[in-house]
């Protein structure tokens, strides 16, 4: 049981990091399903950075930088070149598969995957006291730094979005750009910065994939996790805590799937589960159930406040 939960936390992390990046895209009002490609870039550049420098911080920096650059290119395509967001996303994703595979072959000379001796994984962190607590210690202790970073990021982003003026401005930029502009908020600047940071987070997600549990890069190794991340953004309604819960569900599904295969369930069939969830999420998103539910909730709340006021008066 502790194994499953620990595995859940580990497999959820790349999805969560990418989803937090996707949340920033969403909050800035820049539609994107290019997280998959940005993750893949991060995964490869992390390995390459490690190969060149043999340093963990440099590997992470490589991944962050490439994510930020791709995020910047993406927002430039959408906002300045008026590209169609869906097409641009498909472009980034396809380009990522092609270029990382090509670079892998030309740099490492290997057709399938790289995993040379010079490449070390992200170190596992041992937290002194928590590690000794019987059940919880087993679940929480001994992960890579990025697992803890992702959870801290959830807290930071929640505070940023709901308790700072920059965060409030960003939410307005995504939802009603005209309203933000009329209040004197530089909409484009907000979008550019959000996409750069969002892209960097996707890059970070990628490096956790290639250097977190395993220490290798494989062709198209993200295998749809970027789309799971987008799904988590939708299910979590672009709220950091909601996104975290959705990501954990994906992590759990992935871990359980892995186990189920081991005990003899038909593997390929079980493997489809996360993808089916993704398709369901996209369908739910497009028929606007969340919007309707929200509007209903808001109306109820407004009425409740009005009634309270009437009673008080």
């Amino acid at each position, binding site marked *: 049981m502790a194994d499953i939960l620990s595995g859940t936390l580990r497999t959820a992390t790349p999805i969560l990091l990418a989803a937090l990046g996707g949340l920033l895209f969403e909050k800035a009002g820049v539609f994107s399903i290019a997280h998959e490609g940005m993750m893949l870039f991060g995964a490869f550049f992390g390995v390459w950075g490690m190969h060149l420098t043999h340093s963990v911080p440099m590997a992470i920096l490589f991944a962050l930088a490439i994510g930020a650059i791709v995020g910047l290119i993406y927002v430039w395509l959408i906002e300045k070149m008026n590209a169609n967001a869906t097409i641009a996303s498909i472009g980034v994703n396809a380009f990522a598969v092609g270029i990382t595979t090509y670079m892998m072959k030309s740099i490492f000379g290997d057709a399938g995957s790289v995993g040379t001796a010079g490449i070390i994984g992200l170190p596992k962190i041992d937290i002194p006291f928590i590690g000794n607590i019987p059940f919880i210690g087993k679940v929480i202790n001994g992960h890579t730094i990025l697992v803890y970073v992702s959870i801290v990021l959830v807290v930071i982003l929640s505070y940023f979005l709901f*308790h*700072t003026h920059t965060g409030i401005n960003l939410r307005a930029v995504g939802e*009603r750009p005209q*309203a933000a502009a009329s209040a004197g908020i530089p909409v484009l600047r907000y979008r550019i910065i959000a996409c750069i940071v969002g892209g960097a987070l996707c890059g970070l997600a990628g490096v956790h994939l290639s250097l977190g549990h395993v220490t290798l890069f494989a062709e198209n190794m993200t295998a749809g996790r970027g789309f799971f991340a987008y799904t988590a953004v939708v299910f979590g309604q672009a709220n950091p805590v909601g996104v975290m819960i959705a990501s954990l569900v994906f992590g759990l599904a992935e871990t359980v799937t892995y186990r189920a295969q081991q005990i003899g369930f038909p593997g390929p069939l079980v493997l489809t589960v996360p993808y089916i969830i993704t398709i369901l999420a996209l369908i739910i998103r497009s028929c606007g159930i969340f919007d309707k539910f929200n509007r209903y909730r*808001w109306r109820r*709340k*407004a009425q409740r406040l009005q009634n309270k*006021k009437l009673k008080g008066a």
Partner: protein
Amino acid sequence: MEEAFRLELQNITKRFDKTLANDGVTLRVKRGEVHALIGENGAGKSTLMNILYGLVKPDSGKILLDGKPLTINSPKDSIANGIGMVHQHFMLAPSLTVAENIVLGHPPTRSNIWKPSKLKEKMKTLEADFNFDVPLNAVTGGLTVGLMQRVEIVKTLYRGAEIIILDEPTAVLTPQEAEELFVSIRKLTQAGHTVIFISHKLKEVMEISDTITVMRAGRVVGTVNKEDVDAEQLAQMMIGRELKGVTRAEIDKGEVALKVDDLNVLGDDGIGAVNGLSLEVHLGEIVGIAGVEGNGQTELSEAILGVRKCKSGKVFIDGKDVTTASVGSRIEHGLGFIAQDRVKEGLALDFSIRDNLVLKSRKKEPISKNGIMRWRNASKMSRKMIEDYAIKANGEEEKVQSLSGGNMQKVVVARELSQSPKLVIACQPTRGVDIGASEYIRSMLVKLRDQGNAVLVISADLDEIMELSDRILVMFEGRKTGELSSSQANEQRIGKMMFGQNEGEVTEP
């Protein structure tokens, strides 16, 4: 000059490509007054206000605030100088709370950390001065339209506005909400604030304003005190000629042309939009359906036309059950339909005027023969209709999308009425149409009735409903909450029914 003006716009000129939107416009506003700026669509009111608010730069002209010249380059400058604007389309993000929308872009403290308590302190003084009450913690998307507008006004006050521009503020309000807005406006002016009120509804202009400036075709026609004019004179100034008004013949009601029996229709969200509604429209009668928009009127009209399925109940046209009949066969039974959204539903925008005009008659002689179009006949008929309906266009080949809203609507009306329908459903027939064209369209509907046909008018504009209808039904949440003959109808009674209150059930706390 006997008294100083709070705000002066002198000789403002602004040209967009070929059109002169503002041609030497001068507007003088006194401190503490409600100054109405009226004019038809395209008269240049919006351009002038956008210049004042810093959204548009004028080609020439001066702006004086308290006699001192003022340069405005962006909304930030105008806000800094105490000029605020409430746009017709609210500038509010629905998922943010009211408090968050108010502080948007203008934090109450220098720190980036958002402290709702700081806003509440500031709001207390506003509330004490103006008695404006908004639920700060509510999510904005859940508010009624009237409350959202109040949030907008509070927002401008919070940003320090002393001159407030209201752009067609009553267009989205019910009569009661509009009344509340007027109370708020009076409180503002009592406190020394100045309000510029943009509108083309003459009745409310006469009610609320102190001074009225009328614009037509980019120029100021005149500035008058309210006491010196009446609504008719204002209308004349606005359109440059006398309004004829709608006159109707006394005729007897004929047989039932449309009968709707216990109709239930689902909305897009799968929830009942029309709930057990019954109505009858006789030949020689105009029946108006009043109600706040979104209370099932659209779904009702779509069910009568046949583009939306009925869940239960029946629709009869000319005595025949057409509940499951196709749209085409309903049209053959004599149904004409003026769609509420001419751009999306009424017209093919990149078709020519001629192609739009013959859409319904294209299968009949002389427009086509044996399935082959006779374009010469189509053009001939189109030219006649353009002349009959006074559609302003450069010939029948012009694309519909280049026409003004009023002329587009005339194309729709011309097409629908040319088929000599026995029954016409007219949804928001004069929305966004200027006074001159509105008057014309309304007179065409009355003419149709006088000729012994039936008309069902669905409109959010109460004045229009009361002017046109022989009988008025009020809809609320998909039900009929009242029915009045035109002689019994007044705004108060209809207004109450629009909220689901019927005369007998009205309970005052």
